[in-house]
């Protein structure tokens, strides 16, 4: 990552997104983040937008504000995501709508609008969040995993469509990381997932930053449409 690059991180209020916001600020980047609720913290060189990624008008407004203030956008990390654990037969259709709205529709909107801005400078790095639940086919996570499968397929095609403008698009698929997202999952279930990974431990924020840093590097300009699952899923 080069100093003064402009980085957008969705879902930056807490969890992995918050860690990545600090990580990029510490490297001298200008960081923009969003979430539906306001964060209870502040950082230098960090601007927060109260934006729901599934709302087209709010996404357009946010990206247009970035364009107006910085005239560029170098890196986008589509981290905002929600999960719900339920057997399919007990899943209300409203849950399906809610999960797809944030995890797929929101990611689509942020990619579309960001790419328009990145295209101007013929440079960009888009990193989308999937999960090990996709290759591991975990019972109870069907809708969440399906929304994150959509992220993988979408990103692979996005990579082809945006290559022309020097924009690379890749996916990171973390294993379980201790955040609010997995707080409500019974520990025994998490243990089972971890025991099915090649490397039998929880993931941590640093594991994620490592892969993100790799995708973001200017030297990674020949790497696009790829998916890295953590922990050897």
């Amino acid at each position, binding site marked *: 990552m080069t100093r003064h690059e402009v980085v957008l991180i969705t879902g930056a209020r807490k969890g992995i997104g918050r860690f990545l916001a600090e990580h990029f600020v510490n490297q001298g980047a200008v960081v923009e983040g969003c979430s539906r609720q306001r964060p209870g913290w502040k950082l230098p060189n960090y601007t927060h937008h109260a934006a729901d990624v599934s709302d*087209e*008008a709010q996404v*357009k*407004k946010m990206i*247009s504000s970035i*364009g*107006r203030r910085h005239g560029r956008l170098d890196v986008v990390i589509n981290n905002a995501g929600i999960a719900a654990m339920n057997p399919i037969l007990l899943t209300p259709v409203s849950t399906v709508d809610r999960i797809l709205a944030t995890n797929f529709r929101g990611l689509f909107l942020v990619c*579309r609008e960001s790419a*328009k801005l990145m*295209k*101007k400078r013929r440079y960009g790095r888009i990193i989308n969040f999937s999960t090990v639940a996709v290759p591991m086919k975990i019972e109870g996570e069907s809708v969440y995993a399906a929304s994150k499968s959509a992220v993988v397929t979408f990103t692979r095609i996005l990579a082809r469509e945006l290559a*022309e403008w020097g924009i690379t698009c890749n996916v990171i698929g973390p294993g379980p990381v201790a955040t609010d997202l997995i707080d409500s999952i019974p520990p025994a279930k998490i243990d089972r997932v971890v025991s099915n990974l090649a490397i039998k431990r929880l993931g941590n924020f640093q594991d994620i930053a490592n892969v993100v840093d790799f995708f973001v590097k200017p030297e990674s300009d020949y790497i696009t449409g790829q998916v890295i699952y953590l922990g050897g899923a």
Partner: protein
Amino acid sequence: MLLQSMQPKQKPLSRTEITALVISTLRDVLSRQSETRKHKKAVQESTPLIGEHSVCDSLGLVNLIVDVEQRLQEEHGILLTLADERALSQKISPFRTVSSLVDYIERLIREEIPNDAA
């Protein structure tokens, strides 16, 4: 979809102004297009943008639509999305010709200005 003016409000764009903006953006896009597809004829309102006789290649059309969107935003404070489900349909696409694109932009501005979401 159209959002608030990003700059101080200006009076609505006239058809002539929209046409001029589209034509100058198209010229710019064509000048960047690969040699083989470079247009030989003058660009005018009837210039086709899709189909066999189009002056743009498929990437050129994407560039044109996105660049027009960005210029409307940057130069006139009009934030709108020109994406359309019928994008590549030869019969009903709003992107058929320069003038159909201008019609479409005029319509979007007219239809959606009342929803101004400042």
